[in-house]
């Protein structure tokens, strides 16, 4: 799984930066095509949901997805052959 922010839906309210316990979301610095400052992802492989959702069979944490008023945050399955980055932090 990987964390995905839908740039078509995001309106740049930065509520995700407030709730993420891992501080994965950062306020964006550059506007996208619509002029929205979409939040940047800081090492999104640290998100527990990307690593453990398949193992537990349920959404872990998921605070950013719930609080996002524009339903822009989701987790996507990797395509076949796509490289995965695995991070283990102590």
């Amino acid at each position, binding site marked *: 799984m990987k964390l995905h922010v839908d740039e078509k839906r995001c309106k*740049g309210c*930065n509520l995700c*930066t407030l709730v993420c316990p891992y501080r994965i979301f950062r306020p964006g610095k550059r506007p996208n095509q619509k002029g929205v400052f979409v939040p940047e992802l800081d090492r999104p492989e640290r998100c527990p949901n990307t690593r453990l959702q398949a193992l537990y069979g349920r959404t872990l944490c998921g605070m950013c997805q*719930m609080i996002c008023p524009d339903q822009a945050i989701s987790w996507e399955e990797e395509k076949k052959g796509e490289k995965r980055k695995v991070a283990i932090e102590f």
Partner: protein
Amino acid sequence: MTFSDWLRVDRLPHIYCAGCGNGTVINCTLSAVDQMGWKKEETVFVSGIGCSSRAPGYIVTDSLHTTHGRALAFATGIKLANPSLNVVVFTGDGDLAAIGGNHFIHACRRNIDITVVCMNNMIYGMTGGQGSPTTPRMALSTTTPYGSVEPAFDLCELAIAAGANYVSRWTSYHVKELTRAILAGLRTPGLSFIEALVQCPTNYGRRNRYRQAIDQIEYFKEHGMLVEKARRLREEGKEIPPDTIILGELARRNRPAMGVKA
């Protein structure tokens, strides 16, 4: 099934401003409805007029976008005509407390088996930020430019007094708790009333020193107090600060209900 299966994807992104809390409440409500395991054909979302009441337009089920303040009247009709339907009402503070006040009181009195989710943004958002019955004292709005001099309406106390079976209050910051409260409300027979305080950065926040959506969320976070703690403080005779938001499950009863599936 997740809550995103209940959304009309072709309608998104929705019309709400950046940082509006209504989207969060839609997420929580749909998540709770999804956990109930209801079928899309058997669920109806009803709403009145206002920002909050645009929500059913983004949900795939059958929905009614009715006249101002009359969402509960329509929902009563739906539930009594076909008790097998599951009815959820989205409503706002101006819709529910101001023009729909009597409908609300009598819906609570009849204790119809519906769930009412009130997105309380403490202002009339859609029409340009006029003061609503739930605008807190000294808050600025277009119709109260020197600060509101009237005390605010406590919708949960009103619902308890009128006889609703389940009453709870959360804010749009407490997403997990709000989901759990809505789920409990959906499971409870009789009228369940869940008040969700939401931020309105465009019309409330800008006039009341909450520049960003995050600022008002932080305010909810800091001033929220669980109802158990508030009770304990009252028993100890300690002061509760006047701007505290009492959160949690405020009432759960078993009064006889109307329109329950036989």
